[in-house]
């Protein structure tokens, strides 16, 4: 019993020393975008303004749960995460606050931020078609849906439906075609698969390069990374849905929002504005070979070399709302 009591006493004595205390010039960030992609930005900001940034990284789910359980006492000022679905969810759970900022409104296009300005996209990635340049003529490619045509039987390679990127893509298809038609499309994809879905985009591209299949759907930055590693890669990107009446390439964002119970909201907004500025946008996007959201900022030449495309105007807020429906639909269609 003595031991138990002593332990309890020690806990109460020591804990406050370990606990975090708020310092004046400081922002606390919860980030699902990982350290190697964000830390250079934090360092640059601290150097420029003297504001210190404290952060933890984790998966989106635990971070949101953390914010929820901490409630009004959360130390977090800013939530950074990837995929609009996650941002939408954080906002709909009431974890983020609306931010009224002219700078952000000017720097971030309307379809890449929340309608109520609770979150803002900071970098853009396209989910597009990748094909083998040796075995596929790009003229034969047209839309995402067309990958379900008979001619691609046994040639299509996809990543697992458990990844949120595919869920958002299917959510966009649902918004465009409705559930019934989308289910037909997804079923036709599954029927054309060359092999069971892979667990990541890089595997999809490697399998295509090795000849297991001929086409696939991947995020642009994974393609960029693989190309950096292996410049002789016999793969290329194709921008689908570019016809006049078509929806355009599916794009998604990584982004951030100020938490509802932020202790330094003004400092957090300032930092967010800085992130969307011309100065920081390249740093933010280039770290991961993504596109800047700020239309005044040009993409990294390496990224720009993949060509211009028309992006889908699909409002990303919808992707979050339709995510559940998209998962159910993919499960029903046997898309693992």
């Amino acid at each position: 019993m003595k031991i138990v009591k002593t332990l309890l006493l020690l806990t109460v004595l020591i804990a406050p020393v370990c606990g975090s205390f708020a310092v004046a010039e400081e922002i606390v960030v919860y980030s699902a975008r990982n350290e190697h992609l964000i830390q250079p930005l934090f360092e640059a900001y601290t150097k420029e303004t003297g504001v210190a940034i404290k952060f933890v990284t984790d998966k989106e789910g635990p971070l949101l749960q953390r914010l929820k359980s901490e409630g009004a006492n959360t130390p977090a000022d800013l939530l950074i995460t990837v995929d609009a679905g996650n941002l939408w969810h954080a906002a709909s759970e009431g974890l983020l606050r609306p931010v009224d900022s002219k700078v952000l409104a000017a720097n971030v296009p309307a379809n890449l931020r929340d309608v109520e300005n609770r979150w803002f996209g900071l970098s853009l990635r396209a989910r597009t078609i990748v094909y083998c340049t040796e075995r596929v003529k790009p003229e034969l490619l047209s839309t995402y849906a067309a990958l379900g045509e008979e001619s691609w039987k046994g040639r299509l390679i996809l990543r697992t439906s458990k990844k949120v990127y595919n869920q958002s893509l299917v959510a966009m298809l649902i918004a465009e075609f409705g559930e019934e038609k989308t289910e037909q499309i997804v079923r036709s994809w599954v029927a054309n698969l060359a092999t069971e879905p892979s667990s990541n985009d890089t595997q999809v591209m490697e399998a295509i390069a090795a000849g297991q299949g001929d086409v696939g759907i991947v995020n642009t930055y994974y393609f960029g990374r693989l190309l950096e590693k292996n410049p002789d890669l016999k793969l290329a990107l194709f921008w689908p849905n570019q016809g006049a009446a078509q929806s355009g390439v599916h794009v998604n964002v990584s982004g951030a929002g100020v938490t509802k119970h932020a202790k330094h909201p003004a400092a957090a907004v300032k930092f967010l504005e800085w992130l969307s500025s011309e100065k920081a946008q390249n740093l933010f996007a280039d770290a991961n070979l993504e596109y800047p959201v700020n239309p005044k900022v040009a993409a990294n030449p390496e990224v720009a070399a993949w060509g211009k495309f028309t992006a889908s105007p699909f409002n990303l807020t919808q992707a979050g709302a339709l995510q559940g429906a998209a998962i159910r639909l993919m499960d029903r269609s046997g898309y693992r």
Partner: protein
Amino acid sequence: MPRHSTTRTAPRRGAVPFLNRGFYTGWRIATLFIALLVIIPLSVVFFSWHDPAREIWQHITETLLGNLLRNTFWLVTGVSTGTILLGVSLAWLTAVCEFPGRRFFTWALLLPLAMPAYVLAFVSLGLFDYAGPVQTWLRAWFGSSSWFPDVRATGGVVTILTLALYPYVYLLSRNAFQTQGKRLLEAAESLGCGPWRAFFLVVLPMARPWIAGGTLLVIMEALADFGAVSIFNYDTFTTAIYKAWFGFFSLPAAAQLASCLVLLVFFIIVAEQRMRSRMRFSESRQSAKSERILLDRRWRWLAFAYATTVLSFAFLLPLLQLLRWSLNIFHQEFTSRYLALLGHSLLLGLSAALLICACALLLAYTARRHPDAATCALVRTANLGYALPGTVLAVGIFIPVAALDNSVISLGRLFGFETGQIFQGTLLIMLVAYLVRFMAAGFKTIDGAMHRVTPSIDEAARLAGLRGLKLLGRVHLPILRNGLLSAFTLVFVDVMKEMPITLMTRPFGWDTLAVKIFELTSEGEWERAALPAVTLLLTGLVPIILLMRNSES
């Protein structure tokens, strides 16, 4: 089996033991305290049923459940069979037989312990999948690799988890065989049993508590595994839990699924103990140096080839691949930050291992002193945390801690002073979380060793006037030394590899090697993750090698 030892504090028949004042001896109170630490997060998980997520359950039962149950069944059956086959046979070979390289294999076969299952999974998939070097090479030579088995099918996942987890069975059953020595076999043979018959009729049944303990750990690990199965895109209960949480954004549904997993494991534990409680495992004192069985020429080299194959696939090949990747990126990745990460990993691993071993010893000793049903139930409960996927457990711990903090903060405000968070984000909470998660790894090992202390030893000690702590310290601890070292190693390595709890409960700035691996792999940067993975692996090797040196001497 020591369970027959009498105690003066045994509760009266028929009474509810927890209401009986005589029940609360110091040992039981301490056990209750530890069990409570586990019960709190578990009840958070079970409490999710107050709001059943009907819609999601309906979707799961309609489209996913059949496949999930089938996959989970094959995974558990396959991995437990595989680990028993590998673990027991290798333990027998290295503990009792003599073959070339035996001394080396004795400790080397434990090395895969340091290899996280998700790392093994990724590296193996990279090597043996269609686009990997092995099949590419086959295609270059034979034109086609279509006959090559599909590594991403059930067999592939089962193989990977078997290779990653067999050391648990190996370590525990080796402890058993070592004490049995050759004498048991000779006794059986003198009664007319052939060597094979003697092995299966006498040696194996006598080692059963240890083999069962190791297998139970393996089953719990396999059920809670997320990393490896998701790399193979193999749907199990855990992947469904993640889908419910991250896909449908329903933590309640995820917790409800997780509670099914906990129940399943609870039944397995109870069934195993039921079967075992009818047996007694008194062990003869070990002869000073038992002689080993000399295998004949052919068998000797077969044994060597077998051990080499297992070691290569479970450890050497993946290590080489990781090293190759690390060398590629070493110059651009390695910074002094790695030393800080390593320091954090070490410190957390060591302190958690100490804490857990102390608590596991306490539990094992209490179970021995008080073999009544109520105490047994407490001890079993304290071990259930191992069955929960780490992320779910992390949430189960985080929610009550945050609630506690929030009420302390409001209480403080009532009295007019502002405090920040007090418990959350402290190392203390992190250690408690590790304790809840890895208690079973420590307990199973120490409890197995505790069985080696015969009742007659206890009686002799009592006659000499040794009781309580003195009995534990003077008599039990020296006998338990190997078991304690094994437990320490297991837990230390497990904690260093752990991700979700570390991610969710770590204080600001307390990143570890596992956190770094998570960050890089979640972005698909597997090559860059090789550097922290290799560092983690090499660090994990140190205690394993020390352990084996010790147990050999």
